[in-house]
């Protein structure tokens, strides 16, 4: 079986104008939603208390709300979590109540109302911890970006490093845009997914760049655009199949991983889809835009040849 049968190289580079416009447009839309709607930050970052409780039967959310209102927590958000018998309660941070005891108060009130209720999970994050997590998250993003640029600059050329990281940060912004638009909860695990995607989609750019380098060596007479087009076309099959496989694993997580992994898998899905797009249609045009030339890779080429000489 062979899915991809390209007779000619696909002229990706000549579409540069359109693809760049599309990328720019989606990017701007994503930034727009990030600014206007903002991320629905989870308790990890904002601080506060989240409780998951389970009932034996379908839970009556209004009754839960009523119980909470009775103990002065009418500002709690109550919603179903995964199944109808599981309830997620979000309690905003309250300076006057010892937040560690908050969950106990709620739990005993709920138990009084219905003693079949079962405590499934409590997460309490103090405000200062939340701030630190935001800081560390941003720092991790920065370090990953710089690390990847440095590695690609060392392995290829700085232009490739910059192009790859722009393409992938574009993915990251789009993932965040989705989370802002749908107001999906952005938690610590989602952040982990975003950073993993950053590392993962760089793979994609790397594979294409690798081919570009090889083609510069082989296709001596071709123009830069032709070289890149050929590299992309010939890696296309691999790109789709690999991402397809990764997506299968992610889908399995999406379907069987339960509510806890839902947004994690969702972030990965968006990241994988846009990862394909950006590696092919964002990273490569940027490399061209930055004016990559055969000479850029000459030095590396010599070393490569020595390596090739070995069987």
């Amino acid at each position, binding site marked *: 079986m*062979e899915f991809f049968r390209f007779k000619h190289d696909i002229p990706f580079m000549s579409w540069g104008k359109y693809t760049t416009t599309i990328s720019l447009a989606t990017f701007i839309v994503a930034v727009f939603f990030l600014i206007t709607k903002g991320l629905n930050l989870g308790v990890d970052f904002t601080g506060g208390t989240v409780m998951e409780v389970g009932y034996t039967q379908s839970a009556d959310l209004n009754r839960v709300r009523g119980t909470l209102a009775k103990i002065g927590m009418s500002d709690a958000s109550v919603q179903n979590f995964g199944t109808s018998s599981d309830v997620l309660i979000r309690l905003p941070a309250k300076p006057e109540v010892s937040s560690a005891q908050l969950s106990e108060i709620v739990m005993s009130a709920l138990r009084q109302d219905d003693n079949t209720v079962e*405590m499934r999970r409590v997460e*309490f994050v103090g405000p*200062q*911890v939340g701030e630190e997590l935001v800081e560390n998250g941003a720092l991790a993003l920065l370090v990953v970006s710089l*690390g*990847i640029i440095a590695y690609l600059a060392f*392995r290829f050329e700085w232009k490739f490093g910059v192009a790859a990281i722009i393409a992938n940060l574009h993915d990251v912004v789009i993932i965040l845009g989705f989370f802002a638009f749908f107001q999906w909860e952005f938690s610590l695990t989602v952040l982990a997914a975003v950073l993993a995607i950053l*590392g993962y989609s760089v793979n994609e750019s790397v594979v294409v760049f690798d081919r570009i380098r090889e083609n510069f060596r082989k296709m001596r007479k071709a123009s830069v655009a032709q070289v890149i087009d050929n590299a992309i076309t010939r890696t296309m099959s691999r790109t789709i199949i690999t991402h397809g496989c990764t997506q299968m694993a992610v889908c399995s997580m999406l379907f069987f991983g339960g509510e806890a992994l839902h947004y994690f898998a969702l972030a990965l899905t968006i990241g994988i889809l846009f990862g394909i797009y950006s590696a092919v249609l964002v990273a490569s045009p940027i490399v061209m835009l930055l004016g990559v030339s055969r000479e850029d890779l000459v030095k590396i080429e010599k070393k490569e040849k020595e390596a090739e000489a070995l069987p």
Partner: protein
Amino acid sequence: MNRYPLWKYLIVVGSVLLGLLYTLPNFYGESPAVQISPARTADKADTLLLARVEDTLRENNVPVNGIFLEAVGIKVRFEDTDTQLKAKDILQSALGNKYVVALNLLSDSPQWLTDISALPMYLGLDLRGGVHFLLQVDMKGALSKSLDRYSADIRGSLREEKIRYKGLGREGSQIIVKFRNAELRTKASDEIKKNYDDLNLREQDIEDEFHLVVTLKKEALKRMKDSAVQQNITTLRNRVNELGVAEPIIQQAGADRVVVQLPGVQDTAKAKDILGRTATLELRMVDEEHDVSSALRGQGNFDSELYTERGGGPLLVKKQVMLTGDRINDAQPGFDNNNQPAVHINLDSNGSRIFKQLTRDNVGKRMAILLIEKNQKEVITAPVIREEIPGGRVQITGNMTTVEARDIALLLRAGALAAPMDIIEERTVGPSLGAENIDRGFNSTLFGFAAIAIFMTIYYLIFGFISVTALGVNLLLLIGLLSILQATLTLPGMAAIALTIGMAIDANVLINERIRDELRNGVTPQAAINVGYERAFGTILDANITTLIAGIALFAFGSGPVKGFAVVLCLGILTSMFSAVMVSRAIVNQLYGRRRKLEHVPIGQVWRPTSDKR
């Protein structure tokens, strides 16, 4: 050209066998067990204790499935949870509170596996259920506590030397001693300098008062902070022992934080209560020189404070602390002669000496016993001292219930916290959710793997099947490695396993596509396989290193669950590089490498463009 030297095959076979061996313990289930360990870290579980446990269980006819003496304590395995609970109660009452008897789960893997330290993966709290706390030590509280102690000491020293002072008190982070004239101050300053190395002294004249400002030296401050955290950790450990948790983790995190993890604890309310309470005792004298009623009207005096006795009237208590809860060796709930609930306290030798002297010097006077909890001070009782009390045995009675007596005894016994602590992060996972999370993580991996396996085999035929085998080896090695390292496996960690499966196949797709590519260009089958593997390796390396960079950064900056994700991701990348390149190549070489004339590579259809060649 497609042949491996023998040592490479040996590496592949060896690592697979090793992976199998260390993955094995994960397949055995767990059975309920009871763990007995000495409450004090100084004590060790020994064969004597082992014999005692065995005898106790035999006498009570509790069937035992196995009994083991380990470094952490004695573990007894049971058939079911009912027997486990019964045994726990029997053992606890037989051994007394010198030993912690905790419920635990013990792996059913055979002893020989345990002997080569092949253990099941270490599950995080989100998978096994339990409580995670991050506590912040209140350094300000620690400082004021230590300054209070210095105030008391300085007061004592000055009195001993008969140096008169107008007043002595703590203001913020300093102690201010006021004198009538400069000579007294110099005398006092010399005296303090002689006795206390850790203090800085500064003279200050305000109007006609001569002040001596006492502060803590920088290095003393640092030492104080370090020891505050250390003491709190020790205290927490004692308290956790009282809770009976099988494998608690209590460790310092950062300069002023402590992480407490209690796997399997169900009653989080009790856990939080016991951990968060900062109860200690203070023994002070009742101020009988001043008038209570004038103090009630707001005319207090510098030396004493106004309190209300539990179940009694108001009374003035001197500020000077004679004895604190640090001197308590043991505290037990009980009853006094009139059958009222009481707490029996046993002081250490130093405390006994102080108490003896205190009672001898103050016969006929009243002393107040204050319980300090969460910065709230309360006079439990203020008895009249009838005679000198030697031996360090103190009995506190007052208006308390038996439950209160038990709680007070527990808190006193578990020691005082050097500084108050706040819970700044809590993650509690109920046991049912933990079990569900394991299923979810397992299913995600299983179905992801199955889907990829089916697709790969259809698309790349035999080479696809070889890739899937390599992927299976990758999974085996990853789980084996996680088991060997005893890295904490969390739900995000399980997600990382599933994700690694999806990403690891990338390497094999790259290789297979390369081989197809070469075949398409008309290279002979053997050469195509060789070139495919060689060429793809550079790309695989580059691609994986970028993911590895992300993984390492996540590990460095992530906390808790994210760290678990990062560990598995990084390990998964390493194992996948090995299995995708070396293991799959070894299989290919074994199958095809020896054939002189390989006509066809079973890697699925290789389509060649028919018209116009490039």
